């Protein structure tokens, strides 16, 4: 890759690191920005989905003849409209099955049919006229229960992978993973102190404020359009086309503005349904989920059950770490337990480490990615034990962590050897931070935790068009979920040497640009950003060529500096430097339009680490926990737009705080979700929180010309443990289950009181 990897260390930036207003800002503060549900089309129908009321049921028959007779109903679809075209691709078949139930409904909320009608009211009425004959089956929603030999089995085709010998009996355990190195048993023999604990985390939802929405318009010739809020419209296009047997390029998908995703909009739910309805009715069909549908039928994250055992010597050196993680990922394979096992010990420099993960299915909605998928649960377990161990050794938790922290050259717990990383820098900065020494009052405590996330590169494709007036149109295919347009413009402006406000970026539809991976894995600023830089460099080459042509000198005798082409040296000739604007103005007569382009699959993503400090106060009579102060210190590699980097730190931390304290999927004995709304699924509100302080560290990623690492996900990894550790410091009970809800905490406090009394 033509990158000068040391450049990020020495380069003086002009616009990178400034905080300009985002290009799409005005639209978003005036209500003009068009999100998923904001589109209309002539002759549009409204689509609604009928969902299973049962957690597990065989679908014996579906009769929709009465619904079709209702005036205004134009189409009904069931599994029969989704024949299996997945050609042996098991993961795609699972998507198909999740989109529309086939022989069985596997969770409450599983789609079983859908209608398109001339109004929402008629569509709603039509759903009531569809008769589904169910044979209700025993269900299981708990991960440990689902692993038991006598548990109801969801799929007859799952025989646990990764164990020897391979079982002959179907079960809910999809696969066993193992990561690590060294000899864990030998390590524990050397340990002076061993702590072993069991942890559980309940499932949480990404909780984006915008429900899934799309508007499909397909003709009988198989050509179509889809407007959709998604993190990846190219993924939506390819998946939908494959599921419905359409030609990929005949389906043009446009990404609307997206009202949050956090990983939850990286797959399809209603999109193939809307397309199938539209194709059948031969009219545009809009489908918008209700909030209840979002909770019941999209992809929350896994619940988990985790055992962690860590051993260390008297002087505070960890000699062995061992973890067993069990994640249920809903009704289909693919829980993020693999990432959980990989990340569990990633922040430590360990000689002997092992993490075993079990991917488990249960009668819950198919999980989807949620910000650093799989890592927060594993981190909660490990960082809780680390904190407890530090106390037992008699060290300050921060010193214990510094002593054992992963650093450059560490053989990571999941395999690779780390290059330059920022964990120690975040810890040292944490120790210097005023928060770290601030006084605490009664029933108040301070906890901390360190977290890790890989970050990701992937496919990006960018075109950069130079206008004759010297402005630049930047065309990317990565949905802008949190201000990335601004970062893209900053990077292009930096390369070209022109002001930020001369660059305008658009997120192009799938017909206008090559494939771009989903906006996930904290990849966009890194990978699409680097594509912007490389597209700008491509444009610069062409701009220099035009200048050479105008001057009548060889192309390689022209260099680009400060937004101008100028002769490379005295020998090249004596010409006044030409600005981008001047060259662009002559483009029509020097060979036509000037554009740069870059397409690639980026590697070299830089891992990122964070240290979080949390102060909380617990009301010992009610178990209420108030977060008093919270500080995030994270390595960004390079902060392109620091405000949006801080925003990622703060947003992730608060999602983690919600996960730690109050958010959870609550199931009844009937396997039905009891809190499918924002009233009882309690995401943090404004008055629950203090300001979230941030410290951005910049340890450059050698894989990016400016040193960018991803920043979006690491911030949700440490909060569960940081909060739990602070609660433990406040009132002396170690909470091993999330959410640390008031009833659970009060119960723990009472049993602690009982123990104290017994000891007296």
């Amino acid at each position, binding site marked *: 890759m033509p990158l000068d990897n040391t450049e990020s260390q020495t380069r003086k930036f002009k616009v990178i690191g400034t905080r300009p207003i985002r290009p799409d800002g005005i639209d978003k503060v005036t209500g003009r920005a068009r999100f998923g549900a904001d589109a209309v089309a002539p002759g549009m129908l409204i689509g609604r989905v009928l969902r299973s009321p049962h957690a597990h049921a065989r679908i014996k028959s579906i009769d929709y003849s009465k619904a079709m007779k209702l005036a205004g109903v134009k189409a009904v679809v069931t599994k029969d409209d989704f024949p299996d075209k997945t050609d042996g691709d098991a993961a795609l078949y699972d998507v198909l099955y999740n989109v529309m139930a086939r022989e069985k409904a596997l969770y409450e909320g599983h789609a079983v049919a859908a209608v398109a009608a001339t109004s929402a009211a008629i569509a709603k009425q039509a759903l009531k006229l569809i008769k589904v004959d169910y044979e209700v089956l025993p269900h299981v929603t708990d991960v440990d229960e689902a692993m038991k030999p006598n548990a109801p089995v969801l799929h007859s085709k799952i025989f646990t992978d990764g164990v020897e010998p391979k079982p002959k009996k179907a079960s809910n355990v999809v696969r066993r993973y193992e990561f690590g190195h060294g000899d864990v048993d030998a390590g524990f023999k050397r340990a002076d102190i061993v702590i072993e604990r069991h942890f559980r985390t309940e499932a949480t939802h990404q909780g984006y404020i915008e429900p899934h929405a799309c508007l499909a318009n397909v003709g009988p010739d198989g050509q179509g359009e889809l407007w959709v809020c998604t993190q990846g419209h190219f993924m939506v296009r390819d998946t939908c086309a494959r599921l419905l047997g359409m030609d990929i390029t005949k389906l043009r998908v446009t990404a609307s503005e997206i009202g949050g995703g956090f990983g939850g909009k990286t797959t399809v739910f209603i999109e193939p349904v809307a397309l199938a309805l539209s194709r059948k009715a031969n009219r545009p069909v809009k489908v918008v989920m209700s909030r*209840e549908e979002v909770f019941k039928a999209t992809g929350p994250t896994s619940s988990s059950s985790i055992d962690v055992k860590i051993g260390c010597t008297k002087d505070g050196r960890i000699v062995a770490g061992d973890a067993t993680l069990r994640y249920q990922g809903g009704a289909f394979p693919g829980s993020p337990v693999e990432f959980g096992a990989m990340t569990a010990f990633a922040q430590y420099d360990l000689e002997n480490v092992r993490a075993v993960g079990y991917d488990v299915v249960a009668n819950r909605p198919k999980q989807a990615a949620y910000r650093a998928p799989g890592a927060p649960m594993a981190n909660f377990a490990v960082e809780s034990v680390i904190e407890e161990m530090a106390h037992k050794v008699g060290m300050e938790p921060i010193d214990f962590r510094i002593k054992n922290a992963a650093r450059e050259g560490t053989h990571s717990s999941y395999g690779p050897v780390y290059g330059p990383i920022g964990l120690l820098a975040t810890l040292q900065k944490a120790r210097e931070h005023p928060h770290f020494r601030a006084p605490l009052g009664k029933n108040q405590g301070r906890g901390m935790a360190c977290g890790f996330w890989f970050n990701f590169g992937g496919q990006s494709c960018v075109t950069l068009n130079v206008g004759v007036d010297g402005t630049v149109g930047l065309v990317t295919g990565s949905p802008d979920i949190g201000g990335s347009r601004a970062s893209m413009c900053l990077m292009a402006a930096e390369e070209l040497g022109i002001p930020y406000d001369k660059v305008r970026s658009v997120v192009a539809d799938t017909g206008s640009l090559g494939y771009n991976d989903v906006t996930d894995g904290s990849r966009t600023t890194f990978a699409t950003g680097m594509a912007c830089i490389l597209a700008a460099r491509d444009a610069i080459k062409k701009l220099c060529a035009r200048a050479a042509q105008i001057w009548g000198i060889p192309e390689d005798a022209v260099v680009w500096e400060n937004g101008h082409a100028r002769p490379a040296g005295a020998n090249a000739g004596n010409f006044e430097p030409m600005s981008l604007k001047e060259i662009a103005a002559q483009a029509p007569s020097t060979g036509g339009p000037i554009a740069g382009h870059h397409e690639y699959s980026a590697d070299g993503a830089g891992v990122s680490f964070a240290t979080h400090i949390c102060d909380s106060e617990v009301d010992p009579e009610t178990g*209420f926990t*108030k977060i008093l102060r919270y500080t995030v210190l994270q390595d960004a590699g390079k902060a392109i737009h620091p405000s949006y980097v801080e925003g990622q730190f703060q947003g992730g931390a608060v999602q983690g705080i919600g996960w730690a304290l109050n958010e959870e999927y609550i199931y009844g004995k009937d396997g039905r979700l009891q809190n499918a709304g924002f009233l009882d699924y309690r995401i943090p*509100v404004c008055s629950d929180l203090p300001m979230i302080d941030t410290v951005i560290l910049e340890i450059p990623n050698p894989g990016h010309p400016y040193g960018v690492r991803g920043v979006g996900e690491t911030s949700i990894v440490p909060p569960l443990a940081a909060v739990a550790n602070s609660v433990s410091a406040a009132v002396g009970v170690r909470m091993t289950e999330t959410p640390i809800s008031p*009833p659970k905490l*009060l119960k723990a406090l009472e049993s602690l009181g009982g123990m104290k009394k017994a000891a007296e």
Partner: protein
Amino acid sequence: MRYERPNTLQAASQLLAKEKGSAYVLAGGTDLLVRLRTGFVEPDLIVDIKRVAVTRTIAKGATGWKIGAAVTGAELGENAALKKAWPGVVEAANLIGSKQVQGRCTMTGNLCNASPAADSVPALVAAGAKAVIVGPKGRRTIPVEQVPVGPGKTSLKKGEIIESLLLPARPARSGDAYLRFIPRTEMDIAVVGVGVSLTLDAKGVVKDARVALGAVAPTVLLVPEAAKAIIGTKLDARAMDALAAACSAACKPIDDKRGTKDYRIKVAGVLAKRAARIALDRAKGSK
């Protein structure tokens, strides 16, 4: 579904009485619209009473306060005199939902929604509030605790509408308070709620008290044993413990998604003490 907006309560009452299908009164709508939207109710008729002048006014008379059925939480909070007389009631009403919900929600709606966890109801019951009901057979006035009879059910008969709520005039040396427990700081339904209203004699001894609990039984509970525990005391530690014990003993809660039985029983006592402390301070500060 029909929507009607009569100008008098008599007309509203007639519309409700005549309707053969299901009919609902609409004031603030913050509960009704949610039920409508989620398909929980499918009314044939909605009668909007907000254009009836009497439902929109707060009036102070010699015997006390009269609060119209459609007076919003925000309007209650802006009425300084009412807030001074019955701070616990106003605070409780102001705890319902967000600022947005406060712009619409009403205490009468909170009462008629008949949720055991309604925030304003324990405060109203503790305050000894009464409901003025208008119906086909004329007017009647009943204590507010007689309105809800079970979750989602009221004692109102077909065609009956609550016109207003009456709060007694405040005796000297009186104070009231309402506290609830929620896991967040806002936007939640009470896991436990406690309303306390008390009056002191000249020596600072509690001579009269009413204590009511929310979210610990199918309806809001008036707990005479809790009042008995503090009447005749200066709310010393022993009286406080007795109050807490009486409140906990009166609870008949369930385990649900919002809290456990044990938790509710325990926290009812904790909040009763805290609410009593606030009510006491207010009584001492009032003239």
